[in-house]
């Protein structure tokens, strides 16, 4: 028995060593000349893959010898995949993602100036450049942006005897109660683990709250945030939201909104094409600024996704990456992507192209007042993870102050 055990251990170790050896060999040896790059792109909707396929074909025709291997990843899988790529040293050359700062901190990615031409660098809108920096240097390449506004169902508002959309939090509650009396859900509140951090911040920023204080330190349990969460809890407890916001995701809210069963909900430019049109193209809805506590100043939640270029093979991939990125960042190629997917521009040259659509224009106009999650802080992804898991419980059993303090502790631990 004992001898067998030793044999098993010995065999196991030798396999482990052999396999570890192979793993290292193949991970770095995928491309020797640096002319073939791997691009991991996020799936925004069914059109995304077709766009990249066509773009890459065009790129390869214009840059003979260079090749781009495309890998499409669903957003639901993205975090897990990216973390695994880094951990197993199989990072792509170019990654389309919503975070970059921990890559920059760990020295994994190029600075923006190393992988795009000065013209492209100068074309990014300053608001987004500020979001793409880590310790004063730009690492992320702004890719798309998005803003959030209040969607309201005009038919339900008329039925409930309401005029326009609410501007203050008190109005939101009153309007929601009237809509409820008219037989629908007043406000659709998705505080489930899918995107609780975006929904919460959309409210908190309009109450003077946020994730960090003026000096950039985590301030998640600040009084303004506690008051915001208490307000959302009060909305939930008074029964004007859909049941159990803590387990609801955005798809469910907007599915019901499109069916005319929810009066108000916060959505983005993609909401019409992605959620409303597939269910009911004729829905009579309007878009308004996010309500604020006092109704004076209305901030918008800005969201930005980035491209990040990973250092590989001692910088051999840089030329291919630069060619590919410069090719993508031509006005024609970027605005085509934005129009196809319903996102807002991050470059000056693509800006004008979108303002012609009245629906999109509302979001483009809201961008200057937008506030962003602190994505340039490398700890943000862990904080967002904690928010996704725990925030919702504050509107069901938990206590807002305690829940926020718990997240604050996580944030301080993460850095």
């Amino acid at each position, binding site marked *: 028995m*004992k*001898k*067998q*055990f*030793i*044999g*098993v*251990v010995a*065999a*196991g*170790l*030798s*396999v*482990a060593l052999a*396999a570890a050896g192979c793993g290292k060999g193949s991970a770095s040896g995928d491309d020797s000349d640096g002319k073939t790059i791997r691009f991991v792109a996020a799936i925004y909707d069914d059109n995304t893959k077709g766009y990249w396929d066509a773009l890459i074909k065009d790129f390869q025709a214009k840059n003979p010898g260079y090749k781009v291997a495309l890998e499409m990843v669903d957003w639901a899988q993205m*975090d*897990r995949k*990216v*973390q*695994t*790529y*880094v*951990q197993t040293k199989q990072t792509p050359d170019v990654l389309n993602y919503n975070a970059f700062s*921990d*890559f920059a*901190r*760990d020295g*994994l990615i190029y600075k923006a100036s190393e992988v795009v031409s000065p013209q492209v660098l100068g074309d990014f809108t300053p608001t987004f450049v500020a979001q793409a920096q880590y310790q004063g240097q730009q690492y992320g390449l702004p890719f798309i942006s998005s803003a959030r506004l209040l969607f309201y169902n005009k038919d339900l508002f008329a039925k409930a005897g309401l005029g326009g959309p609410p501007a203050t939090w008190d109005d939101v509650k009153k309007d929601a109660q009237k809509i409820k009396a008219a037989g629908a859900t007043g406000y659709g509140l998705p505080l*489930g*683990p899918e995107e609780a951090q975006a929904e919460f911040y959309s409210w908190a920023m309009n109450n003077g709250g946020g994730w960090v204080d003026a000096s950039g330190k985590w301030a998640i349990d600040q009084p303004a945030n506690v008051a915001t969460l208490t307000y959302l809890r009060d909305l939930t407890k008074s029964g004007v939201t*859909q*049941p*159990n916001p*803590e*387990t609801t995701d955005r798809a*469910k809210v907007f599915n*019901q909104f499109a069916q005319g069963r929810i009066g108000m909900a916060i959505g983005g430019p993609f909401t019409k094409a992605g959620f409303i049109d597939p269910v009911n193209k004729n829905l009579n809805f309007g878009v308004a600024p996010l309500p604020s506590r006092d109704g004076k100043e209305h901030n918008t939640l800005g969201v930005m996704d980035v491209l990040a270029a990973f250092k590989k093979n001692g910088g051999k991939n840089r030329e291919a990456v630069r060619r590919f990125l410069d090719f993508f960042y031509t006005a024609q190629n970027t605005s085509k992507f934005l129009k196809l997917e319903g996102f807002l521009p991050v470059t000056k040259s693509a800006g004008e192209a979108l303002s012609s659509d009245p629906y999109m224009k509302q979001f483009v106009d809201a961008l200057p007042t937008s506030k962003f999650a602190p994505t340039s802080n*490398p*700890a943000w*992804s*862990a904080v967002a*993870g*904690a928010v*996704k*898991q*725990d925030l*919702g*419980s504050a509107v*069901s*059993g*938990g206590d807002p102050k305690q829940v926020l303090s*718990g997240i604050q502790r*996580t944030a301080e631990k*993460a850095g």
Partner: protein
Amino acid sequence: MDGVTKAGRGASSRPARLPGLRRALAPLPWLAPSLLLVGAVVLWPVVEMVRTSLLDISSSGTTLGGAGTSNYTDLFDEPDLWPVLGRTLLWVAGVVVAATVLSLALGQLLHARFPGRRAVRWAVIVPWAASVLMTALIWRWMLDNDSGVINRVLLDLGVLDKPVNWLAHPAQALLWMMGVAVFVTLPFTSFVILAGLQSIPDDVYEAARVDGASAWTTYFRITLPLLRPSLLIGTIVNVINVFNNFPIIWSMTQGGPGHATDITTTFTYKIAFFDKHVGESAAMAVVNFLLILLMVLLYLRAVRRPGARA
């Protein structure tokens, strides 16, 4: 262990002992393929898991160096850890006991002769043949408060007066998910028991009948003791499977709201991919692994009475 080291030393200093070593190694060529397989798919991952739990891995996934035991101290500082462990034990015990009791009855039914037995046996396999993920997702939509069929039926029957969001309330959600786990565990368990029943020779029952034993006595004094080997195998496999079950809870509640329906496997996943703390997640996996080992050892000790053949 001593035998090997002694033989090894002998090989270098005293050539006379060499045949002994050779005899010890003789079976190796035949065992090697399975040993390699065990090494590659069982031992290597365990080694990697333990190694990862001792590394300092940043939120991006970059290994920064050794972490000592800090991943373990972080893990034991988690306020959610003990509730999660307690819930895991409840989950395992509840699902395995319920599945075994139901399977004993189901096995007996499948063993009995009746018209259409073949069809019933096939039907019992269905939950096993269907993907667990698919089953769990279907249950999740059946339990939906807005469009789920279960609420519809209960409303129409007048049992409920308004829809219940079953999966949003931790206690209800856990019960429903345990129900789903029992449902997917039944086929395997009842077929193991059926196999056990078929291996009991008829003459034992004949002897019991001659001695005038009642049906209950026959079942508890003959059938159940003779089913021991099958029950033992079935329970161990089920304990491990249910303990490590991930898809049911992940697809139905994601362990939420908060951590209220997490078991160790979903908790491990959340630490790695929500909290971005891979090292601590590996530490949780090690704890999980040790717990399973411990439970199986305790169980084996509890059921292995002297003289019992198992």
